[in-house]
């Protein structure tokens, strides 16, 4: 059982010299948490994950994983962590079974029953060469190898990339089981819908910097919301733009899409002064949340 945080970074920085990387990241992830790292490509998510596994060296700062130093104790850290890299690549000439057997031997101490149960759970293809497998089928193998030794910490970079909805559901239920067992998951994504379903807390990164760490609920509360309102006849979107909290309003034919912060009351009241055929709330996506934090950041 891990007494302190499972992951703790202090001023963790990586300078690639091209403006991208990671800047003085202070972050803690507690035991039993499913923690999401959110940000667009190039935000520093993969850089952070690679630093934790000593695949790259920090320019400054330090990281402790499972109470161990990420560099000097790297071997032990890697023995206790399961990792799924983003943009997973495997040996193209080996079969799925061959790849899993190789990683089983390389890891050592893997309970083959656990591995085989994961293969069955994800319906992983074992008898065909990797080069013939779809991205989704390769990703299944990636997930099996990450989970097969029942690690204390899972570091997953874009884990559901390429997975079909059924397998995504299997993956989400597996994450719930892992959390219930008190194990910890750090996963990265550029899709809010992926992380909001499974994470307890999430961090948003932008240009290598930590923008915010909070629960999904709190972030949703401050996120820009969108309503798509279909009227019986075209309505001037300027009516909405003048309302408090409205960030944007645009019309296409008789449909107006309004983006706003805070309460929906003024928007709904203005809409109600016209004949409304339908109201469709749009899921807040990453850009909406970023919009909120970009604005906070720049003012």
């Amino acid at each position, binding site marked *: 059982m891990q007494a302190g945080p499972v992951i703790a970074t202090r001023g963790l920085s990586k300078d690639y010299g091209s403006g991208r990387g990671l800047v003085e990241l202070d972050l803690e992830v507690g035991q039993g948490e499913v923690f999401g790292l959110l940000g667009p490509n190039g935000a520093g998510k*993969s850089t952070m994950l*690679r630093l934790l*596994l000593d*695949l*790259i*060296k920090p320019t400054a700062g330090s990281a402790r994983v499972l109470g161990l130093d990420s560099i000097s104790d790297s*071997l*032990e850290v*890697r*023995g206790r*962590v399961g*990792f799924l*890299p983003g*943009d*997973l*690549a*495997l*040996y193209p*000439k*080996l079969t799925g079974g061959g790849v899993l057997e*190789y*990683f089983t*031997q*390389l*890891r*050592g101490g893997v309970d083959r029953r656990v591995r085989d149960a994961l293969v069955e759970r994800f319906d992983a293809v074992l008898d065909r060469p990797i080069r013939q497998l779809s991205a989704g089928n390769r990703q299944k193998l*990636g997930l099996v*190898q990450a989970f097969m030794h029942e690690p204390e910490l899972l570091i997953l970079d874009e884990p559901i990339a390429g997975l079909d909805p059924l397998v995504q559901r299997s993956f989400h239920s597996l994450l719930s089981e892992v959390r219930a067992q008190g194990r910890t998951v750090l996963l990265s994504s550029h899709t809010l819908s992926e992380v909001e379903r499974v994470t307890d807390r999430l961090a948003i990164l932008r240009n290598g910097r930590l923008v915010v760490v909070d629960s999904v609920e709190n972030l949703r509360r401050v996120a820009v919301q969108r309503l798509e309102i279909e009227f019986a006849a075209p309505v001037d979107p300027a009516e909405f733009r003048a309302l408090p909290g409205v960030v944007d309003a645009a019309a296409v034919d008789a449909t107006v899409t309004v983006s706003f912060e805070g309460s929906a009351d003024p928007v709904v009241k203005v809409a109600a002064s016209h004949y409304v055929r339908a109201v469709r709330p749009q899921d807040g996506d990453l850009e909406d949340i970023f919009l909120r934090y970009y604005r906070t950041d720049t003012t």
Partner: protein
Amino acid sequence: MSRPVTQLTLRLRLPSTMSAAVGLIAVMAAVGALFPAVGHSIGKLHVPKSVGNLLGGGDYGTVTGWFRSEIAIIYAPLVIGALAITGASAATAGEEEDRILALVLAYPIRRSRLIIAKAAAIAAVVLIIALAVWIGLILGVALAGGGITIWHITALAVQLAFFGLAIGALAITLAAATGRRSLATGVAAGVAVLGWLINSFAPLVSVLSWLKYVSLFYYYTGHDPLTRGIDLPSLVVLGLVTFLLMAIAIRSIERRDLRA
């Protein structure tokens, strides 16, 4: 060393290695079978000294000279060098460029152990080729009517194996230091070809003759193993070069970032 890494690396290199080995044996048998028909006439050819040096003396009139020129100087080192260099580059920098190493090194294996395990697989490739040269020469010499003892054939195969190990270690070092497959392949191949040219031409210019000592090729064949047997000092030099290069390779990959 990690046995799974060595086994997999060797398994992935085995098809090309075995094809090359079978091809080598077949070519050497054909070269041997050709000698009785052409040896007498081709042996009378007068080859300029510079060209003769490039071809291991250009003495085509004897079985030893024939195999030295046809196999020992060009074909055997070319095949062993090509397989050692491409194998070493693909197994290290190639896997890094293909992003496979990012997953492998997230497992509990030290980078030093990984490199040593890869090097062991490349060493096995080199030994298979050296063995094929040994078998091919025995067969070829027999078909040529004899003229080289097993001991001298063994000497050539041993010198060749050490040469292959050193060239493979050079490619691994370049790959470990840079993570770039094309650079490792290109530079190691360039060094091998340059070494062959230096070893051939340096002795022709007295003030430059010392240059031959910087050529790995010189330590492989400068002593003429087909007539003089194994040259222990040359093997020591090639062994030390291999050891030193591997130490540099390990140090290089331990200290740098894995490429994204």
